């Protein structure tokens, strides 16, 4: 993509998260917390149902960021998990990631992000900072 400038609106990315995705993420990450697999356990601790791993959500944001920037080096990535992404057994949850370029300074790009499942904002104070090499991959 072309050089990023403050105010640029990045193309919205939408991901689906199914129960099978939660199983795959648990295997790959080692996070076998049953609240991501077992409806009964999830409800027993006061959750509305099986929820996605927060780090799966943040990982998908990381993927969106990498796709927007052509794999620019990530310097900071993080968020608060303010609302769970509930994943029903019979249909995947959706995750919509919107981003704008908030700031470009000293070789660092800061993105403003809005991450929702349905109408619900699921990440609070999401933050992504990338290093952009003037001759490098973010130009790709």
């Amino acid at each position, binding site marked *: 993509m072309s050089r990023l400038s403050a105010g640029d609106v990045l193309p919205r990315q939408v991901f689906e998260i199914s129960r099978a995705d939660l199983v795959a993420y648990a295997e790959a990450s080692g996070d076998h917390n049953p609240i991501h697999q077992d409806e009964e356990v999830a409800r027993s601790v006061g*959750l509305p149902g099986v929820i996605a791993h927060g780090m799966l959500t943040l990982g998908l944001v990381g993927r969106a960021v990498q796709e927007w920037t052509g794999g620019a080096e990530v310097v900071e990535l993080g968020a608060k998990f303010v609302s769970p992404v509930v994943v029903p057994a019979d249909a995947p949850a959706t995750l919509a990631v919107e981003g704008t370029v908030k700031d470009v300074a000293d070789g660092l790009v800061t993105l403003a992000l809005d991450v929702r499942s349905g109408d619900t904002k699921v990440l609070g104070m999401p933050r992504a900072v990338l290093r952009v090499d003037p001759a490098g991959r973010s130009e790709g």
Partner: protein
Amino acid sequence: MPVAADLVGRSYPAPAPLEVTAERVRAFAAALGHDSSYDDVPPTFPIVLAFDAMQAFLDAEQVDLHRIVHGEQRFTYERPLRVGDRLSATLVVRTVRSLGVADVIGTASEIVDADGALVCTGTATLVHGGGE
């Protein structure tokens, strides 16, 4: 069971280093839906090791994983992770706040490479509570 405030300052190393192998990275990237042309290490990959350190903390303090909800996670990176890295992590409890129905535990995990150089720092908030 409430989490004691006197845990603040205690540290809990992950029991073993994490070898960043191509196979592990590929599986992690695939679980995030990256296609096979993606050959970097996803930025959230260090959670694999930070999770081990968190599990060591939970085991030591006899907290059940299923009573923990991840409240916040942030990473700052000194350099990108690379296949071939051998990473170690130690979690430090920074804060414990009681909200009545839940305890909110603030942690920081420093992740270092085989030379002891800092690769990234993960800060996490763990919410402990709910249910019996």
